[in-house]
């Protein structure tokens, strides 16, 4: 399995974190995993919604010291 790649989108506002994630996902291969770091509260709900809508795989979402860590796998 390839190593999980970190996307640091801290301190950017909606839809910045989502766009950062999408730009990486678009260039990635199926099976690649990403961990998005975000401090934007709105994105915490929006990003899982986008992942579900386009059919990727949400791995986990947790908040550590004020930073959300969203892990996702490219599924298609």
């Amino acid at each position: 399995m390839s190593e999980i790649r970190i996307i640091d989108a801290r301190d950017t506002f909606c839809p910045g974190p989502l766009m950062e994630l999408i730009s990486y996902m678009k260039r990635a291969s199926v099976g690649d995993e990403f961990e998005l770091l975000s401090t934007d509260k709105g994105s915490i709900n929006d990003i899982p919604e986008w992942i579900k809508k386009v059919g990727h795989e949400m791995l986990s979402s947790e908040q550590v010291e004020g930073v959300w860590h969203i892990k996702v796998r490219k599924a298609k």
Partner: protein
Amino acid sequence: MPREWRGADGDNRIMSRKIYVLCVSGTREKLQMAAMVASVAAASGDEVTVFFSMNAMLYFVKGRDTEAPAEGEFGRLMANDKGVPSFKQLFTYAAELGDAKLLPCSMAVDLLKAEEADLDPLLGPPTGLTRFLSDAEGAQLFTF
């Protein structure tokens, strides 16, 4: 209402929609909201077309305005926070990540006496309102 369909792999997904965005105002807040709608919809698989006319066109012609004036408090907040992606950046995401079509109004292009080389490379061909309305018939239309 979004319609759900069952994909070949058994997942329920939202069918892609046609979304048209009519961008008229040149204020920062309206351009920002239009760019947010366009980028998120396009990146989520919707077929997005943005039509720029009136003051919204000024930011897509070389040598014209680059900084959109704030209409109120939110425009000022966004202008002063580096964490807010610019509307130009968001329209670029819409086009590059989601294949959104960004079309300049042919009337506005003519009135500005702009040549094709003067237009932002993000833009598609100058398009008439009749064509835009015809294409947008029955689809969702957002106006800013």
